[in-house]
């Protein structure tokens, strides 16, 4: 039984074994194996040239990765927690995202920025941000986030194989989540969403940490006679519009579920885009169940902030009042 963190570790291990150009570095990723143990044992196996600790600067980590990617390496860097990617924001927006474009495709940056994100682990402030909307709004970035052990392995391998930079968002509350998927296994390319549960009443659109919330809501929804479809996006950029519009054509209703604050969140893009694509098929506006429009709260309040089964069911109920 692999955990999600274990699957990520194996993905890195396999990628490093397969390709000598893959290197990984960041804060405490060497000897310590990362604060979430995702790089556990890699320094021992591949040596300090391939897996090492850096000085304490996220901008330095990302900036150096850019230079390394320009010079024949495939860097996979770890940012320790979501909010600690912000010091690297200029590197990410002005270079990682733009390098290919500004050199008319001459310089590509095959690099991966791994960022543990989201809440639900009772962490103190600055350790639970869901910052995906900053990245998905930035042209040039590819953004992936797994919700299953199998996808953790497969999406990270895809990310490392990807020719362009990938922001790889790891839902930290799922790190210890285990299942008995046999690894290694590839689950499908970037840009392909997964229908985790087919249904006809409404479509729940989730990703990363909220997929399980959606699945639980779907399970409970059966009691009300609802047959909810659950879609796991897997990658936020590229977005699999085809699977989503197909689903909405069948269900006529959709609810987006994410942890990030709703205002200007990724769910807004989904709602706007899918409404445009499915205007005649929608029986109700697309609902959004999101984190509150507030900074992530202290540990003992986080349950009130996070999307939960009740809120998802409530949103479905609201949509069913239309038409």
């Amino acid at each position, binding site marked *: 039984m692999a955990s999600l963190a274990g699957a990520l570790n194996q993905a890195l291990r396999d990628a490093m074994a397969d390709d000598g150009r893959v290197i990984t570095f960041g804060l405490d990723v060497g000897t*310590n194996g990362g604060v979430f143990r995702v790089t556990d044992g890699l320094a021992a196996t591949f040596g300090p040239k391939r897996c090492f600790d850096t*000085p*304490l*600067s996220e901008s330095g980590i990302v900036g150096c990765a850019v230079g390394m990617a320009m010079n024949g390496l495939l860097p996979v860097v770890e940012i320790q927690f979501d909010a600690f990617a*912000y010091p690297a924001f200029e590197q990410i927006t002005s270079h990682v995202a733009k390098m290919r474009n500004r050199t008319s495709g001459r310089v590509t940056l095959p690099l991966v920025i791994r960022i543990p994100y989201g809440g639900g682990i009772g962490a103190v402030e600055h350790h639970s941000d869901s910052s995906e909307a900053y990245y998905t709004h930035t042209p040039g970035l590819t953004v992936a986030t797994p919700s299953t052990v199998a996808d953790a392995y497969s999406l990270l391998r895809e990310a490392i194989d990807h020719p362009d930079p990938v922001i790889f968002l790891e839902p930290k509350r799922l790190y210890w989540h285990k299942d008995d998927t046999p690894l290694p296994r590839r689950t499908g390319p970037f840009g392909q969403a997964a229908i985790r549960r087919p249904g006809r009443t409404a479509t729940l659109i989730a990703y990363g940490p909220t997929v399980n919330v959606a699945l639980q809501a779907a399970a409970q929804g059966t009691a009300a006679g609802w047959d909810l479809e659950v879609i796991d996006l897997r990658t936020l950029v590229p977005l699999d519009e085809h699977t989503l519009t197909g689903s909405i054509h069948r269900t006529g209703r959709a609810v987006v579920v994410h942890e990030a604050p709703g205002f200007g969140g990724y769910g807004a893009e989904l709602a706007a885009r899918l409404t445009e694509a499915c205007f005649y098929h929608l029986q109700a506006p697309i609902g959004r169940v999101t984190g509150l*429009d507030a900074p992530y*709260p202290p540990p003992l309040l986080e349950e*009130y902030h996070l999307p939960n089964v009740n809120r998802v069911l409530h949103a479905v109920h609201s949509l069913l009042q239309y038409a």
Partner: protein
Amino acid sequence: MTADTLPTTAPFTGLLPAQLRQVLSDRPAPGSTISLGRLPDGEELLRLYRMMVVGRAVEDAATAMAKQGLMAVYPAARGQEACQIGAAAALRRSDWLFPTYRDSIAVISRGADPADVLGGPLGRRHLGYDPYEQRTAPLCTPLATHAPHAVGFAHAARHHGDGTIALVLLGEGATSEGDFHAACTFAAAHQAPVVFLVQNNGYAISTPAHLQSAAPSFAHKGIGYGIPAERVDGNDVLAVLMTTRAAVERARAGAGPALVEAVTYRIGPHTNSDDSTRYRTAAEADPWKQKDPLDRYAAYLHDHGLLTPATTQDAACTAEAEVRKLRLHAQETFVPDPAEITAHVYTQPPGHLLAQTARLALEEDSDG
């Protein structure tokens, strides 16, 4: 280093740091206070002692409580009591302290209630104390980001001409962040009355200080900004106090910012959820345990006839009382108020947030 190699120059007189400054012995022969100025008087010496005893007790209790699940996490400063208490004691009541997540006991030593200071780790609120009441900025987690705040604060103080000094505490790891650089650059360019105290405790989580910087010392970072710097024995509360006070008072006199590197050691793991055996041997701590800041200071007080059974007793009782209060607080039932999540985001919340808050209240009503 033997006593005769101790620095003989007054602190902060050159741009390069002198050798390690000490006052307390870490060997049989007593150290030297050479050129650090006048020693604190007996009353202050005993107050320092009491604060260190309380600090140690709070550290140990908080770590235990974190392990018991009474706290989200606790980043203990065991072994760093001299840095924390010594540095905070260098301030006047009217000065401001800008601490990190590891500096709880520095804040407590300024008079704040431990239960308030540990508000963050206790999980009920982000910050438990009133910064204006304690003249202490919020404990800061994003590394080095509070350093520019302190510079701005000090700049404003100079603007007002009120003689307030800002003291920033930060770890040696945090000196690698861009905001440390920005803070030092601004402080020096604008001659802000601010003092940077780098607690070099040997590690940033698992990363040893020598991987952090290839400079001869963290104090050597000062010269690149035109900021005079000193290195001080961070397990020597008097050396920390007197050096920091020299820095604070020269800033107050208009001489601009200063940098102090306090050399110490993080005896415990990074936090209770860190396993330091993964990256260092237990034996590594042994020489540092010999230099325990509390023991060394107690020995000094004893040698100077200041440590009576009464004073020891008094400190122990205060510590015990503080810890008892803290534990009681942690065990009190907490009735979470979801409205707190959105209540303080804005002075005047925008409409979308008001609507959300209203929905949240409805939810609570229907649940309750």
